[in-house]
């Protein structure tokens, strides 16, 4: 049985492959996939992968990811490959790409950052200073965050 066939193929929606093992639940959270949705979400965890060793896979029915979703996803699953499925066939393939500048993707965690003043009409903005290893800092105050903390602060 191929790894992708552990769950049923979907008719319409998005398949997110190559999620680092253990991160699928985080992906569900940051994509705002509610548990009360009417259509199924299939989750495969800890399957073998040539690319990653072990990986998670998500199949989300009746939802197509947009660019903003991909920007968020890039923080957790920078090697993810995305397939948009329409009528049982792959209509589009996309790779996530982490930009240099992350606008309204994650919040700064530093308590004295100007972004903590909620009355200020400013966007949350992060700069990617290194990709390998991933290092992201607040554009305003310059503070970095550990990756786990950053994932928790994804908007």
């Amino acid at each position, binding site marked *: 049985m191929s790894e992708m066939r552990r769950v049923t193929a979907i008719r319409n929606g998005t398949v997110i492959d190559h999620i680092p093992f253990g991160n699928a639940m985080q992906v569900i959270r940051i994509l705002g996939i509610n548990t009360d949705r009417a259509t199924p979400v299939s989750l495969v965890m800890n399957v073998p992968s040539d690319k990653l060793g072990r990986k998670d896979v998500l199949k989300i029915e009746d939802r197509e990811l947009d660019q903003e979703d991909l920007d968020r996803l890039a923080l957790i699953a920078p090697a993810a490959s995305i397939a948009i499925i329409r009528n049982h066939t792959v209509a589009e393939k996309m790779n996530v790409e982490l930009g240099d500048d992350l606008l309204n993707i994650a919040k700064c965690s530093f308590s*004295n950052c*100007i972004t903590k*003043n909620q*009355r200020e009409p*400013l966007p949350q903005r992060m700069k990617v200073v290194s990709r390998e290893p991933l290092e992201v800092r607040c*554009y305003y105050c*310059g503070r970095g965050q550990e990756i786990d903390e950053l994932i928790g602060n994804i908007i």
Partner: protein
Amino acid sequence: MTRPMREAHPRESESMGNLVTMDDLTNDDIVAVLDDAEKLVPVAKGDILLPLLQGKVLANMFFENSTRTRMSFETAMKRLGGSVLNFSSVGTSVSKGETLYDTMQMIDGYADIAAIRHPRQGAAQYSADAVGIPILNAGDGAGNHPTQTMLDLFTIRQAHGALDGLNVVLVGDLRYGRTVHSLSHALVRFGASLTLVSPASLKMPEEIVSDLKAHGADIKETEALDEQISEADVIYMTRIQKERFPDEEEYAKVAGIYRIEASSLVGAKKGMIIMHPLPRVDEIAPSVDSTEFAKYFQQAFNGVPTRMALLCRSLGVEVPKKVK
């Protein structure tokens, strides 16, 4: 309630005049500003009248206390023939709850340039993005204080003739002290070696040390000051800042931990200088003031010519080759 700022951040491409962090200046820019500052010393002292900035208005936007920075900005502007609007958050719309964004929009219409000090880190960058006039960061929380760095570099170069190859010992509150954050970046770019002296609780933040090392910096970290004195070319003292501590007990543990007296300096190198961004509390004894090493009052004066040079640069006004 995120309101779109004028596009995403339109000023970045045209941010020539902003000085938010030392990254806004190349090494050549820094040298050019220091050269201009040197030429402007007689103007800063009032010996020569040079109204280069006549008709220009500086807004001094101080949301946090300041003595030297605010006054030296004001003196610099006035010595160059410009005028100054002084703002403080007490007794203005800020105390009624006005946002920084709105306050800065107003200043954009009243002044040609603004110096801003704010307790929140990142406030200067935010302001620079929000308005069209150049913004000079006069200190944002524990973040950056680049105009202080420029006057510090000016003072070091004045004493030693150059910046490279020096052993600069930074002492005290390296965690919250914004002056040492900006200064250490700049010194490393010019090839100085850094010795960081602080108690464990006030060590230089990790991301700064990692940045400095990534630039190839030669850095030593220690808690003991005494043994560093004989090797130092510059000792840069800082105050342990009570106001930045989360609680009094933590402050009490480290207050007064470093103190230099005239007698501590017996083994110091000839030409070594002691600097301090001021105000001092008890980290430099008054007995040091009359030694050849004391340069902190000179340093405070140097804020005037250095900020003159920075104001000219940000406003696109060229300092004449010969000032007379």
